[in-house]
Structures are given as C-alpha cells and as structure tokens.
C-alpha cells in the first residue's frame, strides 16, 4: 500500500510548541523495568510510593474538593454532619448521666460529663473510621478506570480516601474544642497524646481500607457487607453509649479486647477528659490489632493487586 503525500504531512509538527525539552538522556543508563509473572506475596515498593507521593496529594485534594462541590452549604457540612448526629444522640439519651464516671474529679456536679461532649468525642474517631471503611472499601470498584487503563501505585487509591476523611476530622475537632469551652470544660493534660491516637486511627483505617478495597474487587458482595460493619461497629465500640451502660459489656470487659475499635475510641476520651481513666490493655489490644490489620492489608492488597485489572 502506498502512502500519499497528504498523509505524510500529518507527521509534521502542526503546532509551534517545541519548547519542550529534548529527549534528555536517552534511556540507556536508565534503570530497567522488568515485567514478569510474580508469585506469592509481594513486598510493598516503598521507593515507588515515595517517587509518586505527589499523586497521593492530588488524589486527596480531589476527594476533598469534590466532596463538597455543588453543595449549597459546601464545607459547612463537615461541621454540620457530626453536630447533627451529636444533637440527635444527646436527645435520645438525655442531656445528663450517660457519661457518668466515678473517676472524674471536682464537685459532684462535674462528675457527670455532659452527654453531648461524651458522644461527640466518640463520634469524631468513629465517623472517621466508618467513612474510611465505606469510602476506602469501595474506592477501587468505583474507580475501575484507574485500575484497567493506567498503571499507578494502586495503594494510593484507598489511601487517598483516608486523607479526605482526615480533613473532616480536623474540622470536627475544631468544633469539639469550641463546644468544650462553651461547657467550661478544660481538656486534660494528656491531650498531648492526641496526635499519636489520631495516627493510630489513621493506620487502622488504612489497614481496613486496603483489605476491604482489595477484597471488594474480587468479591463484590462486600458492597453489602460494608454498611453492616460500620453500623454494628458503632454499637459494639461504645461510641455513643458508654460500655458501662451495657451490662454484658461491663461484666465481660475482656470481650472488648477483641474489638480493635474500642480501645482507640475509649482512649480518645482518656486523652481529652481529665479523670477519664486509661484502659491500657484495651489500648494495647487496639495497637496490636492495628499493626496486624495494616500488615495483612498491605500484603493482601499487593498479592491481589496484579489481578485487579483482569477482574475489575
């Protein structure tokens, strides 16, 4: 087949944008990319994640931007959503009494933590975790193009949903501290441990998001299971009612060691409310759970990653 002159002309540059840098080093001394079948467990490529770190930033930025676009109240929803939940739960459980804790110092009136503060404090980490589970878990199936049309460090896809949850969390904390000062309630000195707790929560959420998102690619059924996990999780982790309010939980405290969320959520209260005792064993169990879930999540994700594009 002959090629006519008119078609050859297509190959000529039609635009004048040749400011682009020339070929650069011509690839000979570049590191070589080897593509071959891999078996078994695959280690996380930290170096690759680091070189592409800007991508993670852009994905988080996208999620934050998109979340409140075209909503009339915009970012105000980040404030309103937890506040409304707090109002509803406070109304349900009565303004006083549920947060009762004998360990609280001060005059008898102060021994009772306002219910709204108690609930708010539990809801902040919990909303973050449940949001990470539901958004993170569905992040891969909801963005299949990112799996089947391009290669990128795929761990970033679930990880980015956590970043945007973190922004919401900081906003909620802002509101929380305002509310605390309205109640005239000074935070405990142990508040310095708060960043560490947040870090722990982030790690746990990441582990869960990695595991659930990778599983959802293979088993779409998790779409139905995930909302269930977040609902049940709230009640068994003493998010809005103190576990002392539930007889069975109070009597068999060791059962709560099996719940990765309880230790974290309880410790948030210990860090914020003076006199709210730490439960070191429960915190330790949460830490161990977090490490286990994160490590499993990373490895499970890496192991199944190579099949994502085939089955997504």
């Amino acid at each position, binding site marked *: *087949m*002959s*090629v006519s002159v*008119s*078609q*050859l002309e*297509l*190959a*000529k*540059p*039609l*635009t004048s*944008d*040749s400011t*682009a840098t*020339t*070929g650069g080093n*011509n*690839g*000979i001394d*570049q590191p*070589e*990319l*080897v*593509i*071959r*079948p*891999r078996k*078994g467990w695959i280690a996380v490529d930290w170096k690759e994640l680091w070189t*592409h770190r*800007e*991508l993670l930033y*852009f994905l988080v*930025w*996208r999620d934050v*931007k*998109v979340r409140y*676009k*075209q909503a009339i109240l915009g970012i105000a929803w980040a404030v309103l959503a937890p506040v409304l939940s707090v109002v509803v739960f406070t109304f349900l459980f009565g303004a006083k009494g549920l947060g009762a804790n004998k360990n609280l110092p001060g005059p008898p009136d102060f021994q009772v933590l306002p219910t709204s503060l108690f609930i708010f404090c539990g809801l902040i980490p919990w909303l973050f975790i449940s949001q990470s589970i539901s958004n993170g878990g569905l992040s891969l199936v909801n*963005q299949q*193009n*990112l*799996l*089947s*049309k*391009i*290669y*990128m460090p795929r761990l970033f896809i679930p990880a980015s949903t956590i970043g945007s949850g973190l922004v919401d969390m900081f906003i909620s904390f802002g509101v929380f501290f305002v509310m605390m000062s309205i109640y005239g309630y000074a935070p405990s000195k142990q508040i310095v441990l708060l960043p560490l707790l947040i870090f722990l929560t982030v790690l746990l959420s990441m582990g869960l998001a990695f595991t659930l998102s990778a599983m959802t690619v*293979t*088993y*779409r*059924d998790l779409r*139905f299971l995930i909302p269930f996990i977040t609902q049940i999780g709230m009640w068994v982790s003493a998010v809005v009612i103190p576990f002392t309010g539930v007889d069975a939980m109070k009597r068999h405290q060791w059962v709560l060691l099996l719940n990765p969320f309880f230790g974290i959520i309880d410790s948030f209260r210990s860090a914020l409310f003076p006199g709210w005792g730490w439960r070191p064993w429960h915190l330790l169990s949460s830490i161990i759970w977090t490490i286990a879930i994160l490590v499993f999540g990373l490895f499970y994700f890496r*192991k*199944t990653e*190579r*099949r994502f*594009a*085939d*089955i997504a």
Partner: protein
Amino acid sequence: MSTPVIKVRGLGKAYRIGMVNPKHTNFRETVTELCKQPFKRMRKYDDDFTKDAADTYWALKDVSFEVGQGEVLGVIGRNGAGKSTLLKLLSRITEPTEGEARIKGRVSSLLEVGTGFHPELTGRENIYLNGAILGMKHAEIKAKFDEIVAFSEVEKFLETPVKRYSSGMYVRLAFAVAAHLEPEVLIVDEVLAVGDASFQKKCLGKMGDVVKHGRTVLFVSHNMDAVASLCTQVLLVEKGRAGEKVSPEEGVKAYLSLTNSDASVPVREKPRTQHRTRDPIFTGLKITGGSGHANVVETGRSVTFEIDIENCEDLKNVTCAISLHNERAQRVVFFHTLYHGGFSFPGAKKKKLVCTVPSLPLVPDSYYVELVMSDGYQFIEKVERVDRLDVVYANSLGTGKIPSRGQGFFVLPCEWKHEG
C-alpha cells in the same frame, strides 16, 4: 537497529474463561463461592492456576520482539487479536502469565484519554489531576500548563466543571494533557480515534513530534493511514501470536489481506464480535448495485442491501446499521435503521431487512461492509468486513471526469462560475 529499549521474550497472558466474565453480584453466588473456597485453595486458585486447563484462554502467547531507541512500532491486528493485552502487559496494568519484558527508561501509557478525569472538577483542576495520574510531577505540569491549555483550545472554559464540556472539548483537554507527557517510552492505544478530524490531525502531528524527539513509541491502531505515516516498523498480531517486525507498507498490506481474505466464507461463518456469546445473528447479506450486478455499483447509482437475520427472537427492541469502510479502515458512510429508517424492531427467529440507498456517490474504490446490531445500550453483534462492495466509475458529474481515491470520499455535484 539501535540499542533495544524494549525487549520482550516469550510473553504470554492467560485468562481463565470463568474469570473473564465474573458474575459474583448476588448473594446466592456469594454463598456458593464461600462453599467452594476451601476447594479453590486446594487448587491454588490465586497463584498458578494450571496453565493448560481447559478453561484457560491465552489472549497472548509466545510473543517476542525488540524495539530500538527512537523506533515507532505500530501494533496492528484484528479486534481481539491480543493487541490491547500486549499493551496492558507492557504498561504494567496486568501481569503476564509467562515470559518477560524489559523496558529501559520512563514509560508512559495512554490506553484511554482522560483517565481519572473528574466531572465535577474544573478544566484547570483536571489538568493537574490527570497530569499527576499520568505520572507528571507538579512542577512539570505547572511549567507546561499554558502549553496544554493552548493545545486543548478550551481557554475560556478553564474554570468550568468538565461535566459541562461538550464531548469534543473534553477529549481535546484530555489529549492535550497526555500529549505533553515526556516519557522515554510511550505506549499508545487507539486514542487518536477521538475528536473531530482537525483535532485528530493535530494529535497525529503531536505524535510525529514525539517521534522526532527520539522517543520510542508503541502504537496500536486500526487507522492504517496513521500507522503507515507514523511507524517505522509494524508488528502484526493475530490470534494472540505476533509475527516478525516488518516495514509499515508490508505490515499494512498483510493486515488488509488478512482481513479481506475470507470472501468465500458464508456470512454465517464469518468471525464476529458479540457482546454476549450467542448464535450468529447476521446470516446473509446480498448487495445489488443499480445496474443489477452483485457487489458492484456505479458511483451515484442506487444500491440495495438485503440482510438476513436469525436467532434473535429474545431481543425486544433492536436496531441495525450498515457501514462502509474503505481499504484504510476508515468508515465512510453509515446507514442506520433508526436514523435513516426511523424504526427499531423486535428480534425474530428469521427476518430480512432491506436497505435501499437511492444514490451512493462514493469515489471509485473497494469498500467493506460492516453490520452491527444493537439494542438501545450496547452492540449485540458486529461483523466486520462481511462483504465487499466495489464502486466503479460513472460519468455522474457529466464532465467525463470524477474525483478518484485520495481526492476525497464523495463525488458530489456543485456549480462553478467565473465572475469578472
């Protein structure tokens, strides 16, 4: 050949046929799945499913080739031949089942324009997002931002969410970002088949630029013009196997003869693409030109297509389309039951559709007929190159001369005057 940048040895990719169409969307199957789980573990379901099992389908097998620095390799082949699988393997989207590939330098792949575009974000925001997804650094995108915007021709709408863009604008913006990637190795799939003609031309021009900068390009296309004009070498992929690299002229010739060779095969047995596997629907096609000859028509005369349809009584509401393609696989005209006939129809056990074109003013050439049946949402069956239609010379303009191949697609009358 200069130093090889891409080295591929015995590359192969197998799919379990059960995995190609996974159906785990309802609870009943979840339970069955769970019950089967322990047995699957025993079969080592996850890792090395037996490579020669009966339900294994090799999309690509034993592919070896090398691409040198600055070479532009066109990968051509029929639909389903394995071209896209090859590109997916080389761009690391999916892992090979066997063999290996080595690539030197930064690789960028472009299997779709606008991957990761978010409809709610503005044009400006999407440039940054898409750039990052394609592997550009923030500083790099920033430096090229104006250039990208100028190329895309959407300056005025930069602050508008892309969901309000026309499809043309969307594609232009998406391609503009991709076009400003500067990888050492670029892998491109058919993305040039988007946008209007002038933009396509611009894209091809940009591709030509990339090539001139000494980058190595792997280019999949059905557009034989683009292949012939851009590529330095061509790799023909057929049924999952790749041949030797040949010159573009030879490659294009081989591709065309490959796709045209089966004129003697009855329509019923022609290879076809189906959305969901089923018995063949298109089972016969008769083309009669105005002068009564089969498969030949004089330009400007009438032509009749009689299409036999079978085995589609389960389809409630379908449409059928005939399109004519020239030898370079460009679609020239399109006749659709809904657009031209104003109807869609219920499928039937056996049915005949007749399409009469009162005048077919195409330039003399050989054209290939493609038949497509679709319901409102997707195609159901597509048969490419069902048959051939030769359009031959006729003095339809009354001047004794008419445009020929390469001077446009149509022979249309017009009036010329000289004034003053």
